[in-house]
């Protein structure tokens, strides 16, 4: 039983990271119907910015995370303006290929500057030690990851449900022309969406980097997993991305713990395939038929 609970906590903490990244995928998809394959790499940039702040400039962890959020927001907006906006009326496949191109660009430009070898955040950057709760012992790191994710999700929900820009975002996602007729600037709203998504990716990157190691290709695997999580939960659905991320983290961790860790990726992608067959709209997604 203790082992099971322990694994649940491990699963939720890795799932939180997936959820944070999945939110970026799902929000961008919701607004411009693009799977932004460069999103995992924005997370990687966030991890490096955080690393530079913590390890090179001795900035405390939380301010470092905030700096990474700002840098990634700017990067996200630039990517959208330079790479995606000119293709606003192009076929979707064109934009998708562009996104993959941006992904490679970020990965290999980064590799050119920082080298291909991985680096580690200073020991205990995200907090060290363990908390004991009865027979359970929880890493302080995990407590931070889960708490930070919860805070981020509450803030995000608040922004989307209550603020003017958040409502504009929902309006543009649901009907671009009607939103324009309200006087909403579609371009600004799209930029805002990239700001939100990229700053969440930065948070995920900094935490992931502090728990494991960072390298220019570190965004690929979690990026794909987060994409699976977003599809699993229902692409375009914000609660879906949160749920999908946590569930994927749990499933992966439980598979590693009780079967074998070498199966965990296979299981993750098997889930994607099954979801796409059985319920293409995802758990919380709505079955919207494509307008012709």
């Amino acid at each position, binding site marked *: 039983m203790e082992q099971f609970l322990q694994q649940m906590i491990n699963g939720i903490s890795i799932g939180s990271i997936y959820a944070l990244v999945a939110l970026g995928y799902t929000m961008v998809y919701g607004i411009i119907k693009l799977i932004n394959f460069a999103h995992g790499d924005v997370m990687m940039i966030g991890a490096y910015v955080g690393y530079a702040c913590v390890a090179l400039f001795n900035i405390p962890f939380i301010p470092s995370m905030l700096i990474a959020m700002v840098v990634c927001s700017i990067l996200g907006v630039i990517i959208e303006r330079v790479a995606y906006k000119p293709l606003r009326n192009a076929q979707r496949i064109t934009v998708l290929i562009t996104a993959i191109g941006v992904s490679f660009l970020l990965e290999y430009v980064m590799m050119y500057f920082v080298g291909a070898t991985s680096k580690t955040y200073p020991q205990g950057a995200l907090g060290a030690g363990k908390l004991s709760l009865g027979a359970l012992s929880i890493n302080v790191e995990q407590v931070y990851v889960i708490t930070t994710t919860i805070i981020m999700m509450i803030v995000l929900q608040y922004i989307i449900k209550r603020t003017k820009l958040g409502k504009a975002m929902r309006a543009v996602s*649901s009907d671009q*022309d*009607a939103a324009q*007729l*309200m006087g909403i600037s579609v371009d600004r709203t799209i930029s805002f969406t990239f700001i939100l998504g990229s700053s969440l990716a930065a948070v995920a990157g900094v935490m992931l980097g502090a728990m494991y190691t960072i390298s220019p290709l570190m965004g690929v695997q979690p990026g794909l997993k987060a994409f699976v999580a977003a599809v699993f939960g229902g692409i375009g659905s914000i609660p879906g991305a949160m749920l999908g991320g946590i569930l994927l983290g749990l499933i992966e961790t439980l598979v590693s713990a009780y079967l074998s860790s070498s199966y965990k990726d296979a299981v993750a992608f098997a889930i994607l395939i099954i979801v796409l067959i059985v319920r293409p709209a995802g758990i919380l997604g709505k079955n919207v038929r494509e307008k012709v």
Partner: protein
Amino acid sequence: MFEINNLNVYYGVIHALRDVSLKINQGEIVTLIGSNGAGKTTTLRAISGITPSKSGEIKFMDENIEKAKTMQIVKSGISQVPEGRRIFPDMSVLENLQMGAYLRKDKEEIRQDLEQVYLRFPRLKDRRTQLAGTLSGGEQQMLAMGRALMAKPKLLLLDEPSMGLSPVLVQEIFQIIKDINKTGTTILLVEQNAHMALSIANRAYILETGEITMSGDASELAQSDAVRKAYLGG
């Protein structure tokens, strides 16, 4: 207060509007009648700056707006109730109305206008927390109109408000259009239901395959043989 001069709009190679000109005076209800595909919706989309025009001018309150962005056009006082209502189905009735006031800053005025909209459409008040997608067709039309009124427009563009509604509801909606006009809002009404539109409008324009073919007093047009044959069923 508003005029269009020789407006041309193309969709690719298709010439959708050919030298369309029309004029609306302060306080009028002007209707634009035509069959499916005549270019009525295109005209409204061009006015609101959603579909770009190739040539010609659109003037509102002595300013040229044919090159302006939709946001600036809405800000200058032109709101549109688009064809098919286009409400935001996943947002509440109240949120939909708030989106109508997106460009306005004065919270107190917005609150008063919200009360006005609720007075005009009491059913919207009862359903303010409900998701807009769950409303009936008539209620959605009212919501779309209420949403446009929240922008406090000087000129209200209505695209086929009668579409898909029962005759009783059509009567109700047209009565509301008259009431809105009485409180000082100028109206451009696009309709396929020529009979209803001509009955409330001051003047009318008839659009056929992208060209204005007739115009004049609504009551005179309603009597003319050509109009009766083509749009009023003989």
